[in-house]
């Protein structure tokens, strides 16, 4: 059987599974549509949260980023997991006790302000829409590479599948589909890693293989890799090159950004009890950690395999000639994500650290997808990785579309425009806004704005600087009032946007940027790390404005008292 048929079979089987679940889990009420009826077991909810959270960025990009960035990029590993500790202790149980459907609804009620709710909706929409573009274009790339259809056709197929289970099933359909998608993606990530770890170190557990001896050299794998990259003149894999301040702030930004992303927070509205919200965060991290503990091993081993492929006789000898390049190189050259330019005209692939002499550029995003081909694994493993990448992108896209549609139908239409809307009418509005969101996301996936990658920094920056501080202060302080919250959110939001635009260009038009991305004038703090400072500004402004204005009304103080204790939590309601 050829590779194309295998890919088609494996991806087709997983899609049939998602469709089946969509038909089985249709939503009948707004409670089922927004919060899966509040009846999802914490372990299953944790698994669904894992799939929801682990996007194309975690599955496809992260190991590639670490493979080329080494120690400096540990911020992704710590940041994207450490946020769950904050969720479990600072947000999830209390928001579950509050018992409503959406994040803006809590902000609106707690700060007794429609303005606060609308600001929260705006932050949510910007963060979620920018994030969903990346998922949709990821779907297109995976389809075009593995199923040999046009990227646009792939995108339509992907959008149709999401449409089926998200619009029909709402949160209920999404949750159960995500459980299936988690299983697909974790198997797809782990199996090639196990093979590669066995090849290189003889240890079947990749997370342990990373710290074992490499078979070829008899030295520890990491020492061997460090020797290879430094011999070729690349930056060190093990030592720190970034400034400590920037690495620290970047990790903080990713952590509080994770805890503040609305599509992750709403996952904790779907469990039956407050105590389930706490343990569900733990289960989510268990399922996320299965991938995240493997990722640094995949990264180091992929980098080593890449170097060994280019230098089959060792890095002291001559590299491979371009004519003798393996098939996977030819396949990826077609996508433009891997490029060879024979600068010195010797016909050899000179892969070295010095920029003007290096002839091979490899995009971060292909390391995971090409990994099984680089390691010459069997065809079904390659098909599995294709299905896994699609599962990661589709599950996250569905979660984001859910957050977008509930913000529009519940917070804008029911909350602001037409409070008297019937449950049936609201359900219809939710489905229509979901369908519109899918069309918009598909359009943007087909015509991705040039700045798609950079907007992810914006999504995290906004979640970190506006949503996380507002939620935390709403729960832990009875003194923060509506004026303080609105002023704080706006200050955090605007300072972060301005800082990103000053460094990346206004609306990401590069020639309008005033500073380089690690300008010493700003202590070399990159725009991706500014969310932490935006959050600090938010906290400070909210504190001072609240203390200079009126007390919080007694009924809102009682609301805060009541969300702090688990007793009396019912299922999530819309009233």
């Amino acid at each position: 059987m050829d590779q194309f048929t295998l890919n088609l079979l494996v991806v087709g089987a997983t899609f049939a599974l998602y469709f089946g679940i969509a038909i089985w889990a249709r939503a009948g009420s707004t409670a089922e549509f927004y919060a899966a009826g509040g009846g999802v077991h914490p372990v299953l909810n944790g698994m669904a949260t894992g799939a929801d959270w682990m996007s194309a960025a975690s599955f496809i990009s992260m190991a590639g980023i670490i493979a080329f960035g080494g120690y400096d990029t540990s911020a992704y590993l710590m940041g994207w997991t450490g946020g769950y500790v904050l969720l479990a202790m600072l947000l999830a149980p209390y928001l579950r006790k509050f018992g409503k459907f959406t994040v803006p609804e809590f902000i609106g009620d707690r700060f007794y302000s429609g303005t606060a709710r609308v600001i929260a909706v705006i932050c949510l929409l910007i963060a979620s829409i920018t994030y969903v573009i990346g998922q949709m274009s990821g779907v297109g790339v995976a389809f075009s590479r593995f199923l040999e259809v046009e990227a646009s056709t792939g995108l339509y197929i992907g959008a149709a599948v999401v449409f089926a289970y998200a619009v029909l099933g709402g949160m209920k359909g999404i949750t159960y589909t995500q459980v299936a998608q988690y299983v697909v993606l974790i198997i797809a990530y782990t199996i090639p890693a196990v093979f590669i770890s066995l090849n290189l170190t003889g240890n079947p557990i990749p997370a342990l293989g990373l710290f074992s001896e490499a078979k070829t050299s008899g030295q520890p794998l990491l020492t061997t890799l460090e020797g290879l990259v430094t011999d070729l003149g690349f930056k060190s894999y093990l030592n720190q090159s970034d400034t400590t301040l920037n690495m620290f702030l970047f990790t903080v930004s990713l952590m509080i950004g994770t805890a503040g992303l609305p599509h992750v927070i709403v996952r904790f509205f779907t469990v039956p009890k407050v105590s389930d919200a706490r343990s569900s965060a733990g289960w989510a991290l268990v399922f996320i950690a299965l991938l995240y503990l493997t990722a640094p091993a995949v990264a180091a081993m992929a980098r080593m395999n890449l170097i060994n492929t280019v230098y089959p006789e060792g890095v002291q000898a001559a590299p491979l000639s371009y004519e003798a390049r393996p098939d996977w190189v030819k396949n990826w050259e077609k996508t433009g994500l891997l490029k060879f330019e024979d600068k010195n005209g010797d016909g050899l692939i000179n892969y070295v650290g010095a920029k003007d002499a290096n002839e091979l550029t490899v995009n971060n995003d292909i390391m995971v997808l090409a990994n099984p081909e680089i390691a010459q694994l069997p065809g079904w493993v390659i098909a599995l990785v294709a299905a896994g990448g699609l599962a990661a992108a589709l599950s996250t896209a569905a979660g984001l579309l859910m957050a977008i549609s509930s913000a529009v139908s519940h917070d804008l239409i029911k909350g602001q425009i037409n409070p008297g809307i019937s449950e049936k009418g609201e359900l219809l509005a939710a489905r229509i806004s979901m369908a519109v969101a899918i069309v918009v996301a598909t359009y943007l996936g087909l015509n991705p704005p040039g700045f798609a990658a950079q907007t992810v920094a914006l999504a995290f920056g906004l979640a970190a600087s506006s949503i996380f501080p507002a939620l935390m202060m709403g729960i832990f302080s009875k003194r923060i009032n509506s004026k303080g919250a609105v002023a704080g959110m706006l200050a955090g939001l605007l300072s972060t946007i301005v800082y990103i635009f000053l460094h990346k260009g206004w609306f990401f038009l590069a020639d309008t940027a005033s500073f380089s991305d690690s300008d010493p004038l700003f202590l070399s703090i990159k725009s991706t790390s500014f969310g932490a400072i935006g959050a600090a500004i938010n906290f400070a402004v909210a504190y001072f404005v609240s203390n200079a204005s009126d007390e919080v009304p007694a009924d809102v103080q009682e609301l805060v008292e009541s969300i702090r204790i688990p007793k009396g939590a019912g299922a999530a309601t819309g009233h």
Partner: protein
Amino acid sequence: MADKSSSNAYWRANIRTIQLYLVIWFVSSFGLGILLRPMLSGIGVGGTDLGFWFAQQGSIIVFLILIFAYAARMNKLDKEHGVEE
């Protein structure tokens, strides 16, 4: 409804727990993984040092233990203060 003083005591106990756990959270990631790494460079772990391990794997394992420990501790506190569901 639990009376005011017992729910205040419950909340104070929760805050103390959170503070302690956040210290551990901070030390295992920002501390051992970033700020204190130069001081730990003498302790070798499979071809690199302890700080590298904490930054890439150790912190994640500590996070996992922290969340389940917090969930168990809060279930106990819920019962002690009579505020469980």
